[in-house]
């Protein structure tokens, strides 16, 4: 067993904590996708909560990776997912409005 420096140990455990913090966002995004009544609210639940969860997971893994190249690649992945998710959320919501899909209201 290689003796681990104290600094790396702290980074590793804080990274684990960040990943653990990001998991409920994914699960709540899925629960919102199942439970919400409308396409607009489902888009809202999914494209926001999942990206926050992915941000937590990426930052936790970047703290644990210990190299700048892996950190840059992880941040690039998160940036690409953000761009794709926001663009497709906007496109789907606009197209649903043009197709006369009524938003859900509480009667």
């Amino acid at each position, binding site marked *: 067993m290689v003796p681990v420096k104290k600094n790396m140990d702290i980074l590793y455990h804080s990274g684990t904590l960040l990943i653990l913090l990001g998991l409920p966002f994914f699960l709540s995004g899925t629960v919102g996708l199942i439970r919400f*009544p409308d396409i607009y609210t489902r888009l809202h639940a999914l494209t926001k909560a999942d990206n926050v969860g992915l941000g937590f997971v990426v930052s936790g893994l970047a703290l644990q990776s210990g190299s700048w190249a892996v950190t840059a690649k992880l941040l690039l992945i998160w940036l690409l997912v953000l761009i794709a998710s926001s663009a497709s959320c906007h496109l789907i919501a606009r197209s649903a409005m043009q*197709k006369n*899909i*009524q938003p*859900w209201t509480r009667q």
Partner: protein
Amino acid sequence: MSYFIFTIFDIVLVLSMVWIAWHLLGTEDIFKAVVLFISFGLLMALAWVRMRAPDVALAEAALGAGLTGPLFLSALRRMNRTRKGERRLDSDETR
């Protein structure tokens, strides 16, 4: 411990893939089948990763997510109805 968790991961992955394939082949809504095919490609990529073949997983990700999904979706508009009762898109889109 690691072996145990990997085994549970593989079992859940394989069962969900079989379930997706069953619904994909059984449905009459072709758009639903296309979306299920895209999801099946993603889970297939995960399965290739678990079979320690990352190169095949990379090809599956590029082909399944980037090529066949858009091709099926753009072919869906041009397709004629071949059978009665077969739906290309959802008939009632009210909500």
